[in-house]
């Protein structure tokens, strides 16, 4: 790190869990963030400010007026622009040292498999079941840790799925054909509820990148922000899930 980096990251360097070594790890880390909406906005901004080396932000959608209530990586001037590009620009403005790449495409198929293979960690800040299952599959195949978040109403949840350790997203939600789901479009969402969950995702991503233990590994945190009730419960590895035995620990990484 040069002098400016030592200054920029000085408050991280003071933390015993980060320090110069941890900050170097973050500066060398590559992260894929899928979704630049209510969860992805704060996650992108905090990961960039934290000095994650490479941040790839994927979102096929464009900024719409109803997004601005909570999707804080976009401003009013960004209406109609690609969310991936708008969020990438905000992240770069916060920290020009971060290599930010905008991927204005849907995360699916061979493209997603390639994206996942090129990074150290994936964050699922998407807003629908098909993308969530696709990300789970891509991370299983590539052996990448997956930080998963979701929000609706006043409630949010976060889980960390790690290669070879515990259940996967499909163990949690085995019925891929499920019709009934709580989305922000259907039931609304409190603006900072999305922010809270997105920030929790950034916290968990940094812990994984730093090699720190997380209490959420293989567990699901559910937060009811109206009642301020937070619950953490273990995710059972479903023996019938195709993931069983499929986690392939990445040999060139100790994440």
């Amino acid at each position, binding site marked *: 790190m040069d002098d400016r980096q030592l200054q920029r990251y000085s408050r991280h360097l003071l933390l015993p869990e980060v320090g110069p070594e941890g900050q170097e790890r973050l500066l060398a880390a590559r992260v894929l963030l899928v*979704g630049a*909406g*209510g*969860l*992805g906005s704060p996650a992108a901004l905090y990961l960039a400010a934290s000095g994650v080396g490479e941040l790839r932000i994927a979102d096929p959608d464009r900024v719409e007026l109803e997004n601005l209530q909570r999707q804080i990586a976009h401003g009013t001037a960004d209406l109609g622009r690609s969310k991936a590009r708008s969020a990438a620009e905000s992240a770069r403005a916060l920290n020009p040292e971060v290599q930010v790449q905008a991927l204005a495409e849907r995360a699916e198929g061979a493209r997603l498999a390639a994206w996942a293979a090129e990074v150290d960690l994936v964050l699922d*800040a*998407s*807003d*629908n*079941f098909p993308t*969530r299952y696709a990300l789970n599959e891509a991370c299983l195949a590539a052996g990448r840790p997956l930080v998963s*978040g*979701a*929000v*609706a*109403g006043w*409630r*949010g*949840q976060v889980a960390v799925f790690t290669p070879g350790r515990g259940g996967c997203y499909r163990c*949690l*939600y*085995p*019925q891929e*054909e*499920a*019709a*009934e*789901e*709580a*989305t*922000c*479009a259907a*039931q609304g*969402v409190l603006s900072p509820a*999305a922010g809270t969950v997105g920030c929790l995702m950034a916290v968990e991503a940094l812990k994984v990148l730093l090699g720190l233990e997380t209490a959420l590994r293989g567990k*699901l945190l*559910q937060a*009811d922000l109206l009642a301020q009730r937070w*619950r*953490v*419960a*273990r*995710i*059972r590895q*479903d023996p019938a899930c195709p993931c069983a035995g499929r986690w392939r620990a990445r040999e060139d990484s100790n994440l």
Partner: protein
Amino acid sequence: MNIKVRYFASMRDRMGRAEETVTVDREGITVEELWRRVAGGQEMPPNLLIAVNMEYTDASRQLKSGDEVAFFPPVTGG
């Protein structure tokens, strides 16, 4: 035996109550059987998250007296 049942988010609205204690006459009733009983025979919604004593589990889990069963609807918003 008594089982404490808790409903969260839209499950609470659907059931019209946040929690209840259900008395059943035998050990070993499954979560699915319990659901049918509290939901008037309706099928379980897909991807309903079930936690028994703060651990997520599936609907075939057998229950014993004093267990706490919680039902959460799936959340996918982002």
